[in-house]
């Protein structure tokens, strides 16, 4: 029973964030929510596959603090992101922007979809043309063989 309750509690538990210390959080819950929203879009450059909100790395903590300072100073989300982006480049954005370098990255799903559609269209067209294709008329020899076979069949039926 106790195990079940513990399991249920595990299921109910929300995602854990590294911002656990009340001293790190902003007083205003709306501003804190905004800071978290921004932080979740920024990559921790030390651990790389975590956002700065999820990471315990020292640099992530510093960046969280900077995000909160700027939010409470009244900057817009875009301004706060731009501050970090100006220093660490596209790599810091967990959602990469569309530019010449990332064009292939963003275009790959479209290319794959286009390729698939093209393959389907081509194979369907080939199938249809195979069904509709005119059957070549019988050659004189084939006609003669067919006639002979039909004669044999007829003989069998008569006898």
């Amino acid at each position, binding site marked *: 029973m106790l195990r079940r309750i513990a399991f249920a509690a595990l299921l109910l538990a929300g995602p854990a964030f590294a911002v656990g210390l009340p001293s790190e959080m902003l007083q205003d819950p709306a501003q804190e929510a905004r800071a978290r929203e921004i932080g979740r879009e920024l990559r921790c*450059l030390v651990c790389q596959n975590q956002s700065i909100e999820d990471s315990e790395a020292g640099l992530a903590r510093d960046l969280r603090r900077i995000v909160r300072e700027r939010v409470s100073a009244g900057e817009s989300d875009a301004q706060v992101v731009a501050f970090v982006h100006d*220093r660490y*480049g596209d790599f810091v954005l967990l959602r990469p922007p569309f530019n010449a370098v990332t064009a292939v990255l963003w275009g790959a799903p479209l290319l794959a979809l286009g390729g698939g559609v093209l393959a389907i269209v*081509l194979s369907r067209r080939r199938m249809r043309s195979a069904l509709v294709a005119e059957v070549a008329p019988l050659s004189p020899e084939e006609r003669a063989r067919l006639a002979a076979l039909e004669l044999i069949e007829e003989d069998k039926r008569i006898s």
Partner: protein
Amino acid sequence: MATTSRRVLMLAPLGLAAAGGAGFYAMLRGMGSGSYDPKGVPSVLVGKPAPAFVLPALDEAGVPGLEDSALRELPAPVLVNFWASWCVPCIVEHPQLMTLAREGVPVFGINYKDKPVDAAAFLARRGNPFQRLGRDEPGRVAIDWGVYGVPETYILDRKGIIRWRWPGPVTPEVLAQDIRPLLRRHA
């Protein structure tokens, strides 16, 4: 017509696999030689001057602190090295910085998130290669430079434009293959 298009379709996956294989091979080779690092964060500062900053000196080191105005007009290209006494790769690269300093190459240091006592002990024990040394205990100036770990080394040309950034220790190979040619080119 029908047969050629079918042949092309059959060859397409092979061509795709070949292109992918060639790409992955190039990436692996680059990772082996160090020219390609999938985890590397390219510096946005390359081609730009150093960001504005003023850092206090480490008194025990006996050299002035560091500020961006000292990185504008320079008699020779300089190295700016971010380091800390608690950083193990910084110990690995220290002899290379000492070599450069002995040869007269200006090496400027930024001591990152360190206690002055520890930083002073590090330099007392291993030597001080820095002509100027700023203390960045809060680590804010490092963030302005886009530093994401120590050690990191930058080369600035005589106009103060950042030409090169190396995240990681300056090994003897990095010194010979990257730093010396860069210093010659920007001399």
